[in-house]
């Protein structure tokens, strides 16, 4: 059964189309991820689905309720963890949960039981009477997840759930997300621009760029579409080598992007000598070459023609780092 269904969902801000004719559905019980660079339209989509913004065109249904005509029904059935923390820091963790539950109409005994349950789920039982201003970043995020679950939502929206957290805390948050998906049977819709996050958490991923969905599929299907192995190389004449390689049947995909060629192949390590030979034939010198397993980054590249990182470097052009240099530093 599909718990979220959208049809040609569109949002325009004066001259900018933030979300452009987006149609997709999310199955009950799955973890679905929207993957895309900053400014791709992820947060705008979430805001429309959670009734905070009205779509310019198109429609969406959550648990069979229309997001425009049945706002309160939709709101009762969803939980949200915003990108920026939305807690009252002057209150304790428990009070934040308590007030939330009241607004969603839980009665006293239900409130008490449920607070115990969700605090246990995110391991915050001992910090319940501490003011939220004294929480760490990770604890705040956990409390928000707990709060999102308070009213037994069918769907939980997570907008960039691990943005700005350190590596260790991110792992912990991931574990909590997996746990609640399993134990509470909550469908999860999350957005992220981290490849590893989407890869670790999501059953299915939709790749979104500039307001459009490019592809929706399971992680393994997306990866196998790129090829079993990925070879990345740089050389003296990319165009010339690219042309030569286009003739080879065993290369499933070729992408040329800022000084690199990325090829999708099978048995990558055996193909390296062949590529070097081909390069010598056309008189091109190979500067570097490597083979690795495909990542979602490669998937993103093959659908958009650029990597997520490049997109972010471009949007941060004030910093003025050339993409190649950031790549070199890795």
């Amino acid at each position: 059964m599909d718990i979220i269904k959208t049809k040609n969902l569109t949002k325009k801000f004066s001259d900018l189309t933030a979300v452009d004719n987006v149609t997709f559905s999310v199955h009950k019980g799955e973890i679905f991820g929207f993957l895309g660079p900053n400014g791709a339209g992820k947060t705008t989509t979430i805001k429309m689905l959670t009734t905070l913004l009205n779509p310019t065109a198109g429609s969406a249904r959550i648990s069979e309720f229309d997001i425009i005509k049945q706002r309160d029904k939709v709101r009762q059935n969803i939980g949200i963890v915003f990108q920026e923390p939305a807690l009252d820091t002057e209150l304790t963790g428990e009070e934040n949960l308590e007030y939330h539950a009241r607004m969603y109409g839980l009665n006293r005994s239900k409130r008490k039981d449920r607070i115990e349950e969700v605090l246990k789920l995110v391991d915050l039982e001992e910090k319940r009477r501490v003011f939220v201003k004294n929480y760490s970043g990770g604890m705040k995020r956990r409390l928000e997840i707990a709060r999102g679950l308070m009213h037994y939502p069918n769907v939980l929206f997570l907008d960039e759930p691990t943005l700005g957290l350190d590596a260790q805390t991110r792992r912990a948050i991931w574990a909590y997300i997996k746990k609640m998906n399993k134990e509470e049977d909550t469908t999860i819709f999350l957005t992220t621009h981290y490849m590893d996050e989407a890869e670790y958490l999501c059953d299915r991923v939709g790749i979104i760029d500039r307001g459009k969905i490019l592809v929706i599929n399971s992680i393994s299907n997306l990866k196998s579409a790129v090829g079993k192995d990925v070879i990345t190389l740089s050389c003296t004449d990319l165009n010339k080598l690219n042309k030569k390689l286009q003739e080879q049947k065993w290369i499933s995909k070729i992408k040329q992007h800022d000084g690199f060629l990325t090829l999708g192949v099978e048995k990558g390590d055996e193909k390296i000598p062949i590529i070097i030979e081909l390069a010598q034939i056309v008189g091109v010198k190979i500067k570097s070459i490597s083979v690795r397993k495909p990542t979602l980054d490669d998937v993103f590249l093959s659908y958009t023609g650029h990597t997520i990182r490049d997109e972010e470097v471009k949007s941060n052009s004030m910093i003025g780092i050339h993409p190649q240099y950031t790549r070199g530093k890795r």
Partner: protein
Amino acid sequence: MFNTREFQAIYVMWLRQMKRFLRSKSRLVSTIIQPLFFLFILGSGFRTVITLGEGGDYLHFLAPGIVAMSILFSSMFTGVSVLWDKQFGFLQEVLVAPISRFSIIIGRTLGGATTALIQGLIILIIAIGLGVPISSFFGLLLTIAFMILIAFSAVGFGLIIASKMQDFHGFPLIMNLIILPLLFLSSAFFPVTSNETMKIIAFFNPLFYMVDGLRGSLIGFNNILPPLVNLGLVFVICIVMMTIGSYLFNKSEA
């Protein structure tokens, strides 16, 4: 009825304000200390300089003005503090809950007005302790009615400002360029009767009716208009402020 979502929402918004108010000791102290400074320092400093139309002690004249000032500042601040919630994201959490915006506004206004009234009452009790006379029991009831109306009007005004501003940077500007001049011209600190122009200006100043009404009902002299006339006018001002304030808040996006 007490378990309906809307009622709970109003209660939560109110309770939250009360908790924040009682927990923030520095705010509690400063909002009470500041008017007391005004009362004592202005009270003793201007006592010999200012001559009152109907005579009497300057401290008695000043006390209602200070009570009005403390309520005004405090409730305006709670109105504007919607901006904090906007900046720290908490407003979003409230706005996606299955409750109407109307309940949010009511709860917030009640919370702001209650905290302001507590402060106003503390100043009032201190002033009475210092020997400020009470005109009559009915006058005292009228005083409280004025205090409630002032509180609600100021929360409404705060909401208007909050929905027009994006952050807190403009707040001191509004305090210094609008509220302080209005307060000075409201007869809170000195009578406006001495100067004809000042008197005319006062009639265009909403704060004047609040201060004059509070004075007329509490001490019962040195006021210009009868308290009940003031009460009617302040009631209208209050309705206007609350209506515009909640309308703009309703329209503003999170």
